[in-house]
Structures are given as C-alpha cells and as structure tokens.
C-alpha cells in the first residue's frame, strides 16, 4: 500500500508500491543515522566514527540504485497514473534527495578527518558551536520529513518546509559569526573554511529534508510547491482546484 485507502485490484501493484515506500524509509533511517553520527564525530573529534560515516555511504548508494530500479520497474510494468504516478515520482525524488543528503554527511566525515586527524591543524572546537544546534535541527527536520513520507501526512510536510526557514537563518547567523572570527584573526582561515563546509553541509541536509516534504505534498495534493514561499502553504492554497 502507498498509504491510501482502498487497494488496487492488482494486489501485486500495492505490494510494489509498498516495497518502494519501505525502501525510502529504510534509506531515510540510514541517512538519519549518518547525520547523527557525523554530528557526534564532529562534537567529539572522533575520526574513527567519521571514517565509518564515509564508509557507510556506499550502503546508501546501493539503496539509491535499488530505489531507482524499483521506480523504473513500476513505470514500465504498471504505467501508473494519477496519485500512483505522483507517488512513484515523489519516491524517486525522495531517493535522490536522501542520497544527496547522505553525500553531505560524508563531507562532514571528511572535515572531521581533516580537522582532527591531521597533525598540522590544531582543532578549534568553538568554531563548531553553531554546527551542534544546526545538526540537531537537521536531524529533527529529517525525522519529521520521514514521518510525513511514512504517513503521507501533508500537515507534517508543511511543518518541515516551514521549519527549514529556521535552519537557513541559523546557517546565515553561523556564517556571520565565522566571518567575525576570521576578521579577528585571519590566521585561522583554514579552520574557518572547514567550519563553513560543516554549516553548509548541515544546511543542505535541511534542504533535502524539505524537498522530501515537498514531494509528499505533491504526491498527496498534486501541487508542485517547490517554488512557493513557505508561509503561503495554507490548507486553502493546497486544496484550491
């Protein structure tokens, strides 16, 4: 089942749609763990954990390929239309976005390895103080987005889209602080660049969570809201013909 009431006459079709959703959720849980572990590695300067994050990206790439194959199979063999077509397209995009979110966590892993694993670079943990809050926000957004996918819940999806605004604000505030730090002591430029990478990666995880939520809205309501401002996503707007 893809979460809608009333199954298809062809039950195998429901099973295929269900498998696709299960794969997206499984992939989502792995990415969520990647974000948590990458944030923890950064927090604790744990290069071993960072290496694990980088290594596990392969598992997510495998799921990415499997997900796209499932979508292709559904399109070729079932020729889905209406809500089924939207669902398959949305899940294809979800798979793509989760893979890209995982790539961001891999970047975090590399930063940890460079900052804490190289002798010539003395770590400055205080530079990553914004990353801690942003990582928590990104995890929360991704969790909510995955719940929205699981339940095909438009209200939750809208909340994710609107919640991403705060993460973006935190990102810009973090950049301003790093700029100030750099002005104060330009010798720390390498550290600051690494910290920018971290903030940008976490901000992108939030963007991918938002994309997931937007595709849930598309799957359920048939509305492409990617270019609609978050504050305009009222139920009246989504239900208008």
């Amino acid at each position, binding site marked *: 089942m893809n979460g809608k009431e009333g199954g*298809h*006459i062809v039950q195998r*079709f429901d099973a295929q749609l269900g498998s696709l959703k299960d794969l997206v959720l499984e992939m989502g849980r792995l990415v969520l763990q990647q974000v948590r572990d990458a944030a923890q590695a950064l927090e604790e300067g744990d290069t071993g954990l960072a290496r694990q994050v980088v290594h596990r990206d392969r598992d997510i790439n495998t799921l990415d390929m499997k997900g796209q194959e499932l979508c292709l199979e559904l399109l070729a063999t079932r020729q889905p*239309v209406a809500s089924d*077509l939207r669902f398959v397209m949305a899940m294809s995009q979800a798979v793509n976005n989760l893979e890209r979110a995982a790539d961001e966590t891999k970047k975090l892993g590399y930063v940890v390895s460079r900052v804490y694993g190289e002798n010539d670079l003395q770590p400055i943990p205080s530079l990553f103080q914004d990353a801690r809050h942003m990582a928590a926000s990104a995890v929360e957004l991704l969790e909510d987005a995955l719940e929205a996918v699981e339940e095909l819940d438009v209200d939750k999806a809208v909340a994710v889209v609107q919640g991403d605004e705060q993460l973006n604000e935190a990102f810009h505030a973090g950049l301003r602080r790093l700029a100030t730090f750099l002005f104060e002591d330009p010798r720390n430029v390498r550290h600051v660049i690494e910290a920018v990478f971290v903030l940008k990666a976490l901000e992108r995880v939030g963007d991918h969570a938002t994309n997931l939520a937007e595709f849930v809205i598309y799957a359920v309501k*048939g509305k492409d809201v990617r270019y609609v401002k978050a504050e305009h996503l009222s139920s009246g707007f989504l239900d208008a013909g």
Partner: protein
Amino acid sequence: MNATMGTLSDAATGVAGRADAMDGLRIRNFSGTVGEVTVANPRMRTRGVDVYYGDKHAIKNVTLDIGSNEVIAMIGPSGCGKSTFLRCLNRMNDTVEGCRVTGHITLDDKDVYDRQMDPVVLRAQVGMVFQKPNPFPKPIYDNIAYGPRIHGIAASRAELDEIVESSLRRAGLWDEVKDRLDQPGTGLSGGQQQRLCIARAIAVSPEVILMDEPCSALDPIATAKIEELIDELRQNYTICIVTHSMQQAARVSQRTAYFHLGDLIEVGETTQIFTNPRHKLTEDYITGRFG
C-alpha cells in the same frame, strides 16, 4: 424511430435541482460533473442529455461540449454509458428498439434531433468508426467511393478518383493499396481495414469522427498507426473516441471525459485527468482501484 428530444422550454421546466443557464441554453438541472463541460470553440454541444433503453436509464443528464479540432476521449467501465453517449451524437441510437433520447444536441448550432435533420446526412457529417473493422465486401476503391456516390459529392469519375486518393492518403493507406484498388477491402490486414474504414468516413467530408474502441482488435503496431493517424486527423476534424485503454486515452486526446453508471463524473484536460483527477471515482477507476 423511438428517439424523442425535448424542446428547450421543456428542458427548462418541471425539473428538480438547480436550473442553470449555459451559452443561452437552459439546461434542466446541474448534473454535478466535475470540470469544465464547456469549451470556447464547440463543434458539438450536448445539454441535459438523457438516454433510456426501456426502463433502463443509460445516460443521465449529460452536458458536454466537444471542441473543434480536438480529440476527446470517453472512458469508463463497461456499461457506464460512454458508447451510448457517443452514439447519440450521430443518432445511431435511433435504430435501437426501445431507446429514448431527451435533451439537446447540436452540431454547429443545428439541432441534431430536429425533424428536418436527415440522419443519413447527419451521419456523413458525423462519421463513425467501429470496434471491429467493417469494410464493405467490395473493392477498396468502392469502399471509399460509396459515400461520395450516394451523397452526390463527386461530379465526375475524375473527381471521385481524386476523393478516393486523398481519403486514402489522409488515412495513411494510399501507398499500401494504390496498386490494388480493385481488390476486396476485406483482404486487407486488420489495421489496414480499420484505416480503410477511417478513409471511408473521411471521404464524405465529415466534421466529426466518432470512434468506438477503434484499436481494440488491433496489434500494437497497427494501433500505433491509428493513433498517429488520429493525431494528424485532428488538424481537420473533431474526434470523439471511446476507449478502454487508459494509456490510449492519455496518448491521443486533449480532453478526457469519465463516465460512471450513466453519469458524466468528470471532464478535463487529459493531462490533468491522468495526473491529478479531481473526483474520487475518476481516481479510483484510472488507478485500477475500481471494483
């Protein structure tokens, strides 16, 4: 003839529900169809059409415009009334015992069911192609020439030759049959026979071509040729096609109408119907949840 049509004044009176005015015609009551039933450039208009086979109410208060140079697909489960509705458009139901048609149907603002309307002339203007190819057991040439002859369209043999050739060309069949016009039409393949039937309909210069499951007896290659032909014919004709193939409806039509138990449930742009239908019954049917 058992078909009877109500007058406009009949249509406006004695009816429960919301009376509505549309394009100057009073229709009997609001049918509840989701989507835009009217178009800016209608070739045919139906208003409050009901069809009864004896006691069976086969079509219920259907109001729908058929736009010029558009392909409109009628879809729905068996027995939903889509073929019945199609057959109202050129009065094919006249010949059905016990069939009664009420409401209003016009072709270019002329009442299709007017007493003055000659059904034979109407069926030249609104041609029909059936599920099973039905060429006459005559030479290919005569299959095409028959209509122009009985309608007195050609003044000379040369003119008739011209009509036969142009009709077969438009139907994409000329190159395949030009060297055997004297051979029976029934000797052609199924797909060629169907294109011959389309050429036969074209030969009498129709405005509208009705197609009732024209590809259901054809293989995918012959089906593709007919679908390509439908797309070309749209430049010059208005086409209404009944099909059980959702993919075919999606491929060939610009508008799609969904019928269910005699009601016109939803009509809209084909892309909208197949990506985001507004009525649950449409959604359930096209996604295969109907049952």
